[in-house]
């Protein structure tokens, strides 16, 4: 299969067209490649695709993080605590250097505290979870580079 040539000029002009015409969706096909640009009009789209709900939109920013080689993902469902106790400094902050095995977070489930160790040495470049946030399996919590 040939590589899909991502033409961002094309996408930009299609998006502009949407704005100008008030359409919600344009699909453009040429030479075996197809692009569809859509605009969320605020109404749930009918049955051709299942509606995207709030939880999906929130996670869409996270999608790109999931595949980051330094992504630290949650091994379980629970509540994340970024500090050992309320009022104490967090385990790690952005910019910190961590070594493999160092505790980065605690995930609490069923009243047991589970420390989350750093999978390798590196520098914390992003912290994606707040103190007390509920987390699901596979959720990206931090990024180490």
């Amino acid at each position, binding site marked *: 299969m040939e590589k899909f040539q991502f033409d961002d000029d094309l996408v930009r002009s299609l998006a502009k067209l949407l704005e100008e015409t008030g359409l919600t969706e344009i699909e453009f096909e040429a030479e075996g490649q197809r692009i569809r640009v859509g605009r969320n009009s605020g109404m749930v789209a009918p049955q051709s*695709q*299942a*509606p*995207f*709900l709030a*939880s*999906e939109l929130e996670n869409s920013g996270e999608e790109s993080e999931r595949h980051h080689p330094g992504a630290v993902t949650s091994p*379980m*469902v*629970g*509540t994340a605590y970024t500090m050992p106790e309320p009022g104490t400094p967090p385990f790690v902050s952005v910019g910190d250097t961590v070594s493999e095995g160092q505790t980065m977070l605690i995930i609490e*489930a*069923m009243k047991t505290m589970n420390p989350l160790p750093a999978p390798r040495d590196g520098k914390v470049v992003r912290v994606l979870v707040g103190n007390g946030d*509920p987390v*699901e*399996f*596979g*959720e990206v919590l931090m990024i180490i580079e």
Partner: protein
Amino acid sequence: MFEKILIANRGEVALRIHRACREMGIRTVAVHSTADADAMHVRLADESVCIGPPATRRSYLNVPAILTAATITNADAIHPGVGFLAENAQFAEMVAEHDIIFIGPAPEHMAIMGDKIAAKATMAKVGLPVIPGSDGPILDEDKALKLSAKIGYPVIVKAAAGAGGRGMKVAHNDETLRQALPTARVEAKANFGSDTLYLEKFLEKPRHIEIQILADNHGNVIHLGERDCSLQRRHQKVIEEAPSPALNAVTREKIGARCVKAMKKLGYQSVGTVELLYENGKFYFIEMNTRLQVEHPISEMISGIDLAREQIRVATGAKLNTAQKNIHLTGHAIECRINAENPETFVPSPGIITDYHAPGGLDVRVDSALYSGYRVPPDYDSLIAKLIVRGRSRNECMMRLRRALEEFVIGGVETTIPLHQRLLTETDFINGDYDIHWLENLLKPVA
């Protein structure tokens, strides 16, 4: 009424429960494995929590993950669906300990019915007919042989902790019984964790008839008639119909009343199904499923009662709002279980659904979580759709079902639709003249 229900299941069952919740204005939480992140019910649910990787043990059977998900989402109740933890008494207890309502019967009834020996003994005590057999575990070969001589061959050896029709062995004489016992023990231990066996008379050509029970927490119990689930392959149901072509109104009323009386004596709550074998005009209790069943829609189609909704209602403590005398079963319904399998070899066929078009029309219902572009994961059972059709008569129902099957498009994977189409042309099926061995005999390769 509950504000939020966590659905601890997947596939079309989870979608079914989600629908019942939404129709009552209840918010839903879908817990799912990574393999089900794009599942229909996950996309439709108000909230979703990924609880683990694809493996069932680490996701849909992962009790701590499910309980934690319920806690962090503040769910009022958990609906366990069908299979997975639906008949797990310990899970039900743990849910209650977390101050969350488990939508199902009391843990003690789940435990009794989960132990097939205890279930039989209990049901005999509350007045249901049972199959003659060991009435307890078989502890040694001699006793097994003596008992078989008494009740008469053929006999069947079953695992006390068994489920899903697995691990059962038939013996036609002393020799085969001697061979079957140790094998059955080993298999039972491997599949169900316990090598306890029991023995029963094996009925040669029975029909599988089951009675749908609905009970509230106030002692009111009703039944919604029977379902005939005799069309099975390897103990898995393929087609179910309600009412059974083999029962008349008098027989139905009698066995229904007997089951209701037994349930009242037990103090049973929620939905449940009493499964029986029926041969030569006699019923024999085999097991009870203390949950909603896959084939519940056919009972819904002929009674007009939404079973998932009622199950949720009674879990809030509400009283049943229909008395037995107001349950009217009209028409005839048939369900085809459509699996993602080759229709002849039954080899599973997971993959991406390229085209999807469900049949429609009066009294045609499709319970399925499929959509065009959906990837059927290889990690779970192969049921991908249930086609449920009703007619004013059995003939009209079959005509409608034949028509609906013609329209059903599921592209990208192999399905058992051709098998269902074939079964609808078989004279025996058309005449309603089949027993629990019929389908397997039909499918046996011709020598």
